[in-house]
């Protein structure tokens, strides 16, 4: 905490982070039809994920925590996709954040703000946050209503669905530190990666466990730097 206090004193620069939700090379539009890399069609109704513990790396490889907040990025809410952090760094080499929620928040009762269970990202019958949610429909889904609902979460050892994301920001911009970064969040990454996810086989994930961990390993690759300036 003390370190954050010191940093805030010298924090003079603003860094704007813009999360851009995409499906491959296309922007994600709610209701539009897309295809996974395995040629399975789907539409998206909800796409939400928690971003917390944002840290920036300086030229000396030191990480600086620049926010203690937990943000909920929501595809339906453009304001939630823009995050501004303050820092005092001359140059930013990399950015790191947790896609998810600190495990302590899962066992400390009811939280407020973006972590308010009323935001729909909390399992009430088996306490714990949903780290990320991708919900829609697919004609190949075998679930009722042809729904495709991936609610991924879990905080216990072996079931932790939060993932650390590190994105290098090199080469550095000349003379001044970065002011804005666009970070792409690619829905397609949920289906490919370490684990092949076929909607026809697994259209529903509503609890922590094996499937949630597979999806989490996949979505840990969904972010990339789209633009920086």
């Amino acid at each position: 905490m003390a370190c954050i206090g010191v940093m805030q004193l010298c924090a003079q620069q603003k860094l704007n982070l813009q999360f851009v939700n995409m499906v491959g090379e296309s922007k994600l539009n709610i209701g539009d039809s897309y295809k996974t890399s395995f040629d399975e069609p789907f539409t998206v109704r909800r796409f939400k994920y928690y971003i917390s513990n944002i840290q920036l790396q300086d030229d000396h490889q030191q990480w600086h925590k620049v926010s203690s907040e937990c943000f909920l990025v929501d595809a339906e809410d453009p304001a939630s996709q823009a995050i501004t952090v303050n820092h005092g760094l001359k140059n930013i080499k990399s950015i790191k954040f947790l896609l998810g929620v600190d495990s302590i928040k899962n066992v400390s009762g009811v939280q407020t703000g973006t972590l308010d269970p009323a935001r729909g990202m909390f399992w009430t019958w088996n306490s714990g946050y949903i780290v990320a949610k991708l919900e829609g429909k697919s004609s190949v889904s075998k679930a009722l209503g042809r729904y495709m609902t991936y609610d991924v979460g879990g905080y216990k050892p072996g079931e932790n669905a939060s993932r650390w994301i590190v994105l290098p920001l090199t080469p550095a911009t000349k003379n001044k530190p970065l002011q804005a970064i666009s970070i792409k969040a690619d829905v397609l990454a949920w289906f490919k990666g370490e684990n092949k996810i076929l909607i026809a086989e697994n259209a529903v994930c509503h609890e922590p466990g094996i499937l949630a961990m597979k999806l989490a390993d996949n979505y840990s690759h969904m972010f990339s730097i789209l633009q920086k300036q």
Partner: protein
Amino acid sequence: MRIACITILLTVLVCIATSFVEKKQAPATTSLAFVVPEGWPQPVYDFSQNPLTKEGFELGRKLFYDGRLSVDGNFPCSSCHQQFAAFATYDHNLSHGVNNSLTTRNAPGLFNLAWQKEFMHDGGINHLDLQPLAPITATNEMGETLNNVLAKLRADTTYRKMFKAAFGDEDINTQKMSKALSQFLLMMVSSNSKYDKVRRGEVSFNLPERLGYDLFKKKCASCHTEPLFSDYTYRNIGVDLDSFINDVGRMRITRLSADSLKFKVPSLRNVMVTAPYLHDGRFYSTYEVFNHYRSSVVKMKNTDSLVRNGIPLSNFEIGQITAFLYTLTDSSFLHDPRFGPPQDAVVPPVMHVH
């Protein structure tokens, strides 16, 4: 000398400043004492995160008895948690929810919750403050959304006043609502049964009660541990799966087959007023429970070793243990006006939910 003067001056200034701040910020709440009965362990609830106040308690009490926490207005918490049944449901095997729905489980009694680490028969809920969110949002219980509940509370002048009195401002959110409910629930301590009075040396057991207590200590107390009458572990007591309800218990939470059909050991305090019994209310009387233990335990891979071979019990012994179980009824708790509906509460008539 000069330094001393400055120090004194500074101290005075700081004192003035702090007294001003305190006057301005400290909400005028009356704190409530939580008394741990003598010989009981320390509670597990972290009171430092939710200090008990009269205002918070009264708010929690109003919420507990308010049907508006449910989608159709007819299902307050108190519809399944009735004071005369030690806050279990009288005579219902499975709890009833909105739109003539049934849940898959028997509502447990509510008391001594400050000593419980996990909630529900499967222990899926890890904090008392989180517990009310499950029944409020379950479609076969109160069927409401948290946002709708909060909107109803925010629209009500009395609630805005009560939230301000309890928490310092009129802002109403899930956290404050659940903290208030917890304050009400935490105060529900049941520690004044005949058993407790005997422990305190105020009265004595009669002969059947005393013989029953001796048998209880031998045959039941390893799981139904005194003084809370539960060790709050999860155990498979050899009750087979109802394949229609398909409730696998603790395994649903841990996803470990070793936890199949394990359920939390219930407290036996007030047991004679909380029938029916077991997670799904399948036994209507304590006699049926005794009969299960002495002759119907199903041997599964993970049936608890303490009951695996049955518990030998004669009819005579059952009678004595039953006499002892009656001493666990805390009638002052069942009639304590502090835990009844607030005076101005309009509680849906019981006939609506039965």
